[in-house]
């Protein structure tokens, strides 16, 4: 059993909304679980947000608004068969209970028609947790007058997203989890007159105007560096330094046909050759899941709690994969608290020995890549990834920035850039927040160093 309560400064508005939401969730869950019949198992999962979104362009407001959303996912398991219904949680108990009853009745009618599922995960255990992280966000009506005057003379574009995010879970075996966080993310770009750009992200639970001003000043200084004419490079292999934001993009690929045990078992993983010992990664490359940071819930869709840390690749060797309970059942393995999709939830790559002030000197001559864009597997079985450089990327000669570059396409195997060609990682990590908002604001982010790589392949 795990149980924890933590809180920082609680904003009264979020606190009231949260209390009402938790009460709604509890009442609907109680009504549903009371109806579980013998031989039936029920799980209930909540995802909810109260968000303000402001989209900016040219340091002006393009769109502004608020979204109050929340949905429950009810799963019924009976006779080795399962199905789910997802429906809104509105906070109106009468409406919500009616939807819940309809969903349960509908599920009972459907489940008996379905094929037997041999890898079904039946909820078990009695673990509970309660994590609340409320903060100090800008008042909604104060955001534009706080954010925009500081960038009024700049070509500033981006999104400010803020508010309360909640994830909840309960099941018929007695597990119950609650995770709530007040947070904001300002994801922005500054553009120069020639279309050159730098990117910045400010995220957290407490807005700090001074930190925002400082970051904008740093972004402006970077933009100044981009004002010289860009250097055109021909295709070829170049020694390259990847800043942490670029590494975060590459790490993201491991959640898509990478570190998943199911993907490995089913022949769909790019790490197949690493698993078989046919290829190696660099002893300088170490990856783990680290939930110590506390920005994402540790419980998954079956109420299982992930270990606080899970080493995945240690000194280039694959020591663990992400194994969901469902995959464990199918292949006779032990689960390790992974989610059903077996993607990374709180990844961290270990730091190395390269000091920040030594980066350009160590790069010597080559490319300084701040960010990458639109990655995809170009040949998954060999771990080959294609994508584009983006934002402030530079040509460096003899340890000095010479000029920005025109964006380049790369096509390269992770067995090379995280393997034989990885020279070193920086001795610092940066937190790269998850700012995605598909289907709702996402949680967490990753902790990654920069990396220096020999002979990285650029193709167009």
């Amino acid at each position: 059993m795990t149980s924890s309560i933590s809180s920082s400064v609680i904003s009264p508005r979020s606190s009231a909304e949260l209390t009402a939401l938790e009460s709604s969730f509890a009442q609907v869950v109680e009504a549903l679980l009371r109806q579980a019949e013998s031989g039936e198992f029920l799980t209930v999962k909540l995802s909810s947000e109260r968000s303000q979104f402001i989209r900016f362009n040219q340091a002006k407001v393009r769109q502004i608004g608020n979204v109050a959303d929340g949905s429950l996912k009810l799963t019924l398991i009976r006779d080795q068969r399962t199905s789910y219904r997802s429906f809104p949680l509105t906070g109106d108990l009468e409406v919500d209970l009616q939807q819940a009853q309809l969903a349960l009745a509908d599920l009972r009618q459907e489940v008996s028609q379905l094929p037997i599922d041999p890898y079904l995960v039946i909820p078990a255990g009695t673990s509970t947790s309660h994590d609340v992280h409320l903060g100090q966000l800008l008042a909604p009506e104060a955001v534009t007058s706080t954010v925009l005057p500081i960038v009024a003379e700049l070509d500033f574009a981006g999104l400010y997203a803020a508010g309360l995010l909640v994830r909840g879970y309960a099941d018929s075996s007695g597990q119950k989890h609650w995770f709530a966080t007040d947070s904001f993310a300002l994801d922005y770009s500054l553009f120069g007159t020639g279309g050159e750009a730098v990117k910045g992200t400010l995220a957290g639970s407490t807005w700090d105007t001074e930190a925002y001003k400082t970051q904008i000043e740093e972004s402006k200084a970077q933009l100044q560096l981009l004002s010289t004419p860009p250097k055109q490079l021909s295709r070829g292999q170049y020694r390259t330094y990847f800043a942490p934001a670029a590494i975060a993009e590459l790490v993201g690929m491991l959640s898509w046909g990478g570190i998943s045990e199911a993907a490995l078992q089913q022949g769909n993983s790019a790490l197949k050759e690493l698993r078989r010992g046919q290829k190696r990664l660099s002893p300088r490359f170490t990856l783990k899941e680290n939930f110590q940071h506390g920005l994402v819930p540790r419980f998954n869709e079956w109420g299982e709690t992930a270990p606080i840390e899970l080493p995945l690749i240690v000194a280039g060797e694959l020591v663990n994969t992400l194994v969901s309970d469902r995959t464990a059942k199918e292949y006779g393995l032990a689960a390790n608290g992974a989610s059903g999709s077996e993607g990374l939830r709180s990844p961290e790559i270990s730091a190395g020995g390269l000091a920040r002030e030594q980066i350009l000197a160590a790069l010597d001559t080559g490319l300084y890549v701040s960010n990458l864009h639109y990655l995809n597997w170009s040949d998954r079985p060999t771990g080959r990834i294609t994508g584009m450089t983006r934002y402030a990327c530079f040509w460096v000669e003899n340890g000095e920035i010479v000029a920005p570059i025109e964006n380049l396409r790369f096509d390269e195997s992770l067995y090379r850039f995280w393997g034989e060609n990885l020279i070193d990682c920086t001795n610092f990590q940066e937190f790269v927040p998850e700012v995605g908002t598909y289907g709702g604001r996402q949680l967490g982010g990753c902790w990654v160093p920069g990396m220096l790589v020999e002979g990285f392949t650029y193709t167009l």
Partner: protein
Amino acid sequence: MISELSKAIAALDLPADWLGLRAVKDTSSTYAVRDGKPETNGKSLTQGVMVEVLVNGQLGYGATNSLKLESLQAAAKTAYQQALTASQWSIHPTTVAERPKVVGQYSSPFLKPLQSLTAGEINEVLVKLCQTLKVSDQIVQTSAAAHIREIETWFVSSNGSEVYQKFLTLATDYAATAQAGPVVQRRSHNGWLAHCHQGGMELFLTPELWAEVKQVGEQAVELLSAEECPTTATTLVLDPDQMLLQIHESVGHPLELDRILGDERNYAGGSFVKPKDFGELVYGSPLMNITFDPTVPGEFSSYSFDDTGVPATREYVIRDGVLERGLGSLESQARLGLPGVACARATSWNRPAIDRMANLNLEPGNASFEEMIGNIEHGVYMQSNRSWSIDDQRHKFQFGCEYAKLIENGQLTKTLRNPNYRGTTPQFWRSLSQLGDRSTWKLYGSPVCGKGEPNQTIWVGHAAPVCAFTNIEVFGGGA
């Protein structure tokens, strides 16, 4: 619902210049089977109302999943306050003319209702599809999935708009993975979720389905012993199931006016197309005719009105290779002073409408498939997308396909695996040298086009004939 929303508008007491309510009820069912065993079964309902308020030339929105009057009033009040706060920072003085009064309705054509097959019956078909895909012991994984959706939208406004639209859609994905030692090849039914259309359950069990699915399994095995696609510059022939991606990424996105205006720069990017290019830019060869056409019956993204109530019509975007108009809403058209189309669309009730392609089609030419291949001395014919990437200005791209055939002396010869190609957008489209006729013209699409801040996933339709492009860089796999 229309009358309830109209009453809600009448009850809202705000000094606004305009008010609009867009309600959405979206029920989607997902069924997925792997190796004949169930993976996913379930149904999701999302419903709610997007309230838009115009004040001082600025729109604000409040979205709520509660349909109660007091929730709508609270959302409207929030929207009003947001608009008021932002009005001194407004990027564009919005007018009521950008939300014209319109009354009408639309419904997807269908023969068999979506409810005509039960979940059990759908699962039976999916299991049988997996069995059909497994043509050999070398098939190590089979999968079959169906996504069935019914979306209803209601739009009312303070200037008298009343629109109801109902969309019935089906998207399917069937695939086989084959393995021989270290070689792994995956083949699917025209690419991931490319089979997506509007209609009823008649789309699920088509007469040709079983033969097509068997061929998917056979081609997965065939790829195991195929040669790697050569690295060369040659004539590239693309099937309509890859043209869908080519049109989407290198024509659709760069022509979105909000990208050209810079709204999208912080996320997906801008465009190499500039405002002065409209009416001037030779985008492709004279064979290239692209239409924005939400009127094609059964195509995935057909509708009669966009999500701001603007009537949808067929328009030429590129005619005889020359760029004529962009993909932009009334707001974007007003901001740029350029012609656009009825394409303000939102993924659901909880997102504001933005510029989106809907059905974006390449019109057919006159050549039969045999005539096209017969005209090519050396080339590669590729089918079904498996990898996609393009830069933030939609200029440099690299795409990969599942299956290819070598073309030698006017004949399709050897099968090729891991086929990829790359190029730059205008150069590529200007190399369009042959265009298939109506018999080669096929409808495909995607339910997962991502864009916007906050992010939105939306459904798009793309139809095209078989196309040939000269002197394109192609290459194979391997590190």
